[in-house]
C-alpha cells in the first residue's frame, strides 16, 4: 500500500467522468493502480482498506465484466458488496430514478457504482445521494473507469502518452468509451484519431481536438494503438450501417488494415467483441498484438484504485 500522494487523487467525492480530472489526477490514479496490479497477482489478494464499508453496484444495463470487475475490486479491498440489477429492483415496477436514489440513500452505502442507459444519470444520482458515486457508464456520455484502465494498459506498454497515435475505430456516435478515451488521451498528450463511417460520427466531433477518418486504411497509418469499439447488433442492419459484412470489409480490423499501423502496434477492445464484425478472430486472439485480456486485468486494478481514492476523501 502506497502512502497518499501529495495532492488529492480525485477532485470531488465522486467519479462521474474524465471531464473534470486533470493530468495529475490521472497519473496519480494510474500510479496507485500499479500497486493493485501487484496485489491482485499475489496469492493473498485481499486487504482490509474498506473494511466495514458498503458498496452498491446498481446496474440498469446488463454488464458482465464491468459489474464483476467492480465487485471484485470492492471485495479485494474488504468492502461489503451488494449487486442490484434492474430486473430485481423496483425501477422495473415504475419507480423513478430519484425515488430509487432516496431508497438507496436510506441504506447508507458508502459508494454507489451505477450504470444507466441515459446520459447524465450518474450526475443526477450524485446530487441526491450522500455517498460517493462512481459512473460505470451513462448512456453515450462517459465511462471513466474504462478510459482509465485503457490508459493503464497503454502506459504499461508504452511508458508515455506524449505523441502516441491512438486510433479509436467504430461506433463513436453511441460510445461512452470513445468519449471518455478522447478526453483522457488528449489530456495526456496523445494524438487521437477517430475512424468510422460518417453515420457513426457525431456532429461536431471534429472540434474535440481529434483527427477524423472515414477511410480506415488512412486512419490506421502509423498508429501506435488501435482501439476498436463494439458495434451493437441493432446498429448494423441498415439504420447506421448497411450490413455486418460491409462494416467488416471497410471498418473491421483485419491483418490488411492493421498492416498500415506502425510495426508493433497494439490492439485494444473494451469488449464484448463481435468477431467478424469489428475485429477478425485471428487478431483478437493474437497475444503479440491484442491487449484485450490485459485490459480486463487492469480493469480490476483501476477500480481498486478508484475505490481507494474515494475512501480517502477529497480536496
Amino acid at each position, binding site marked *: 500500500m502506497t502512502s497518499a500522494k501529495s495532492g488529492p487523487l480525485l477532485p470531488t467525492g465522486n467519479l462521474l467522468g474524465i471531464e473534470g480530472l486533470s493530468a495529475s489526477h490521472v497519473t496519480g490514479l494510474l500510479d496507485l493502480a500499479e500497486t493493485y496490479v501487484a496485489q491482485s497477482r499475489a496469492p493473498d489478494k485481499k486487504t482490509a482498506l474498506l473494511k466495514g464499508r458498503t458498496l452498491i453496484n446498481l446496474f440498469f444495463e446488463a454488464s458482465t465484466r464491468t459489474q464483476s470487475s467492480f465487485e471484485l475490486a470492492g471485495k479485494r479491498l474488504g468492502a461489503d458488496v451488494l449487486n442490484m440489477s434492474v430486473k430485481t429492483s423496483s425501477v422495473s415496477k415504475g419507480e423513478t430514478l430519484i425515488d430509487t436514489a432516496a431508497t438507496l440513500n436510506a441504506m447508507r452505502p458508502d459508494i454507489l457504482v451505477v450504470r444507466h442507459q441515459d446520459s447524465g444519470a450518474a450526475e443526477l444520482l450524485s446530487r441526491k445521494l450522500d455517498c460517493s458515486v462512481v459512473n460505470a457508464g451513462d448512456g453515450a456520455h462517459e465511462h471513466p473507469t474504462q478510459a482509465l484502465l485503457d490508459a493503464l494498459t497503454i502506459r504499461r506498454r508504452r511508458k508515455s502518452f506524449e505523441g502516441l497515435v491512438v486510433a479509436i475505430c467504430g461506433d463513436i456516435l453511441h460510445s461512452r468509451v470513445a468519449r471518455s478515451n478522447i478526453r483522457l488521451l488528449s489530456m495526456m498528450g496523445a494524438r487521437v484519431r477517430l475512424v468510422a*463511417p460518417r453515420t457513426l460520427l457525431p456532429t461536431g466531433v471534429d472540434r474535440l481536438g481529434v483527427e477524423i477518418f*472515414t477511410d480506415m486504411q488512412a486512419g490506421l497509418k502509423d498508429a501506435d494503438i488501435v482501439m476498436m469499439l463494439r458495434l451493437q447488433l441493432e446498429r448494423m442492419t441498415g439504420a447506421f450501417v*448497411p450490413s455486418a459484412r*460491409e462494416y467488416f470489409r471497410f471498418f473491421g480490423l483485419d491483418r490488411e488494415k492493421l498492416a498500415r499501423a506502425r510495426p508493433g502496434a497494439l490492439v485494444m477492445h473494451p469488449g464484448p467483441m463481435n468477431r467478424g464484425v469489428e475485429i477478425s478472430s485471428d487478431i483478437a486472439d493474437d497475444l503479440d498484438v491484442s491487449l484485450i485480456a490485459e485490459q480486463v486485468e487492469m480493469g480490476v486494478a483501476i477500480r481498486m484504485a478508484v475505490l481507494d481514492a474515494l475512501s480517502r476523501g477529497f480536496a
Partner: protein
Amino acid sequence: MTGPSGKTGRLAFRNARLIDPASNLDVKGGLLVENGRIADIGPRLFNDADKNDPEIIDCRGLVLAPGLIDCRVFTGEPGSEHRETLHSASEAAAAGGVTTMVVMPNTDPVIDEPSLVDFILRRASATAKVRVAPMAALTRKLKGEVMTEMGLLMEAGAVAFTDGDQTVANARVMRRALSYAAGFGALVVGHAEDTDLVEGAAITESEFATRAGLPAAPAMAEVIIVERDLRLVELTGARYHFGQISTRAALDAIAKAKARGLPVTCGVSAHHLILNELDVGAYYTFRKVKPPLRCEADRAAMVEGVMSGVIDVIVSSHEPQGADTKRQPFASAAFGAVGLETLLPAALNLCHESGAALPHILNTLTASPARILGLAGGTLAKGAPADLVLLDENEPFVVDETKLSSRARNTAFEGRRFQGRAQKTFVGGECVFSRS
C-alpha cells in the same frame, strides 16, 4: 462500366468539325483512333490524305464529337425483358449516338446487391453494343428504409446510388444515406417528388388537369423535396445530383445552392425541354411521364436552365413500356417514354429554336455527365476511349415509332419534326451504328 474491348487497328477521320466540350475545342480537322482509343487529333490531321483510302472516313464537314452519355436509362433487364433488354436498349442508344447508357436500378430484382451489379456488367459486356454503367439502389428494394451496401456496390462497379424514380420519403433515412455516401465519396442521385403529395396523381395540377378530370399533384411537390435534399446536402457534405428537375422553383433553388458552393448538380429530360402539360392532349398516355409534364413557363425555365448552365445534363429518361401498360385509361397507364434515339435531336432543338451554341448543348451530353459520374469517356482527348458520334446537326426528319430501334416504341415524340441526328456511332473505335 463495360464496353467492347479495344480493337486493334487504326481508324481515321478527316474533314470533320471536331467538337470537344471538355477542352473547348471546335475546329475543322481529323482524328486518329488506335487500339480503341483516340491516338491523335488536330486541325491538319489527314488533310492531304487520299480521299479514296478505305481506312479513312471522310466526314464531309459533319460534326465529330464524343459519344453521348445518357445518365438516365431504365431498361427491362432483369425482370421485364419483354419490354427492353440491355441489348435492345443498346441498339436504340447506338442509333441515337449514345455510347454510354447509365442504367437505373429499378428492375426486378432491384439492383441493390453487389452480385446484381456484377450481373448487369456481365450481361452488358456479353450483349450490349454500347457501354453500360450501372447505378445501384440507394435503399434496399427501393423501399426508402434501409441503405444499401454502398462500399461493396462501388467495388462491384456501381457508378452512383439512386432509387431511380422513387423519392426517399423519410428525411432521417435520406440524411443517413447521404452521410454514409459522403464517407465513401459516392454520388447520390435523387428523385424530387414528395411521395405523399403525388400519390395517385397522373399529371400536374392545373386548369388543364381540372378540365381533363385527371388526378393531379401540385408542381410544388418537386421543390419541396429539392429544398429538403439541398439542406441535407448542406448537413452531410454528400455529392448530390438531381436526376431530373422540371420546374422553375426547383431550378431557382438549385441555382442558389450552387452559388453557395454546395456540391450539387442536376439534369433535365428531353421531354421536359420539348413538351408541356398541354401535350397530353386527348389523354395521350405516351406523354405520361414521371415527373409529369409541367406548364409552359416551367418548360421555358428548363430551356433557360440548360442555356445558363444551372442544369448540367440532358437525359433521355428512357423508360420502355408496352401495350399492356400504356394502352390503358390515362390514370391507370404506366409512367415513362422511350428516348434514347430522340435524346440528341431533342437537345439539338435548343440550338435551332433557342439559339444555344452546339458545343454547349453537346457538353450537357458528354463532358458534363462524364465529370459528374467520374466516367472515362465524354472527351476527344488523346488516350480517351474512342467513343464517338458523327452527327449532322441540321438533317430534318420526322419521328416514326415504327422505325425506332428499341424493343419498346412508346415515344412521346411520335410525328414530331426534329433537326439533327447521329449518322455514325463508334464505341471503342468500333462502328456500332451507321445510318443508311
